[in-house]
């Protein structure tokens, strides 16, 4: 883990309340950044004390850039959205474990919901390099919230759902998966808690798979015990022991 100032190269609105930001990573050893791990961003206003955890959407080793996609939810992300190219953000990373890549997997399902979509893209790119067949199922609130479809289409087939049916199929990605017969041996998913639970219940014991969880964090490095998740092996820290856990690992009671 390193701490450094990163320069904003681009900060672009790509959907309602949703922005893509590219950050210059000259001082970082990007080989340590793997898909599914995250960075912890210091908001450039010291009243906003805690860092904001954001997953990596893309790691561009050649250009020494990392990209994130974030949604404006509260004041911190709002301040981020108002920053201009050239300004700097202090970041801490890489944090968390990332998605394990299985050597023997032939076909994967990427299942993303809302702000859970971004980390699956870098993962997909790396799997594509290995020749794995990729199907993506992405869920959003409505047409205005949809983003990154074109990018995922470069990886393979893409199914999209929106809650209000204004784009793609109406409903959640679980509805798609219940209707559509999709071939895959490994599942990778990130999204809201309810979605992860539904996927876990549907596929545990049947498929190989990894789910990336979110929890409110203070430190992001495993020191505060703020971000616990209940697993069958006891309480674990989402930030340090996760955020990725295997199917069947988390206990939902």
């Amino acid at each position, binding site marked *: 883990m390193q*701490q450094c100032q990163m320069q904003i190269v681009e900060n672009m609105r790509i959907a309602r309340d949703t922005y893509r930001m590219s950050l210059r990573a000259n001082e970082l050893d990007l080989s340590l950044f793997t898909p599914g791990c995250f960075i912890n961003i210091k908001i450039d206003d010291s009243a*906003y004390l805690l860092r904001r955890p954001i997953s990596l959407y893309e790691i561009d080793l050649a250009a020494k850039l990392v990209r994130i996609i974030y949604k404006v939810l509260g004041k911190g992300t709002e301040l981020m959205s108002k920053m201009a190219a050239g300004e700097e953000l202090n970041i*801490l990373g890489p944090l968390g474990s990332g998605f394990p890549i299985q050597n023997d997997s032939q076909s994967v399902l990427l299942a993303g919901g809302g702000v859970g979509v971004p980390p699956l893209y870098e993962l997909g790119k790396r799997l594509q390099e290995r020749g794995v067949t990729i199907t993506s199922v992405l869920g959003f609130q409505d047409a205005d919230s949809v983003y990154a479809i074109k990018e995922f289409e470069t990886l393979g087939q893409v199914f999209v759902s929106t809650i209000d049916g204004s784009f793609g199929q109406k409903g959640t990605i679980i509805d798609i998966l219940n209707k559509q017969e999709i071939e895959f041996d490994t599942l990778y998913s990130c999204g809201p808690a309810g979605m992860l639970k539904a996927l876990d219940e549907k596929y545990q014991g049947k498929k190989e798979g990894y789910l990336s969880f979110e929890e409110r964090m*203070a*430190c992001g*490095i*495993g*020191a505060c015990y703020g*971000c616990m998740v209940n697993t069958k092996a006891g*309480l674990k820290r989402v930030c340090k022991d996760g955020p990725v856990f295997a199917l069947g690992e988390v206990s939902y009671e």
Partner: protein
Amino acid sequence: MNRLAVELPGLSLKNPVMPASGCFGFGREFAELYDLSLLGSIMIKAVTREPRLGNPVPRVAETPSGMLNAIGLQNPGIDKVEGELNWLAGFHLPIIANVAGYSDEDYCYVAERIAKVPNIGALEINISCPNVKQGGITYGQDPAVAKALTQKIKAVSSKPVYMKLSPNVANIKEMAKAVEEGGADGITMINTLIGMRFDMKKRKPLLANKTGGLSGPAIKPVALKMIYDVYETVKIPIIGMGGIQTAEDVLEFFYAGASAVAIGTENFVNPWICPQIIEELPKVLDQYGFEKMTDAIGVGH
């Protein structure tokens, strides 16, 4: 001469800076970032007799220049913690064990056992945790109860005992006086204030525990005032904490009356904060004209 050195009961500190309890785990995460032997000491996470799962999530929330936590004393229990202390022995620091409990017996059991671990320099008795239903803070709000507990722990502990005071009282001087009379060797202060935030969309408290402990820069002026008062009331030394972010803050706590300081929340924002502050302290001493750290204790009075 080491300008930063401070001598406290049970604690020969090469510098007065240590991470605060609950904000550093048992040091394992930070040992990956820097050499823990740079620190003055380490206040380890609260230890109870039995393992504790703590509170449900969300356990943390942000507030202006501060944060709320309701971890709820999650810890693996005294048996496992002895193992962690063994590992910490490799850094050659006097460790401060933060002891929590739900009854006099619990406190005494843990205190007696953990005091025997060789690299423990002193005990910090947490009578001020706002995030557990019984025990914790009730001990921290009644002077007579606090005094009685101090006496009992002193009777069983082979190491000096520091009592950790809660700021959630009307009169901190009474509490300080009570634990001094009970035989405490020192005081650590302050623990968190009690606070709350709401989830505007869900229309309910943001923390699953509803309320949490407020820490960070927001509480710094409250900590300084209480330390100032306690310094004028008791003779035993004070380890101060509450919102420290810079080496200058450390000196301000010394002005108020602290003889050493602990850094809590800022470790979450900048994990390298403790060694950075230690490095800057000599410059700050120069800037404000102090030869050594101990010259600054209580100069603000």
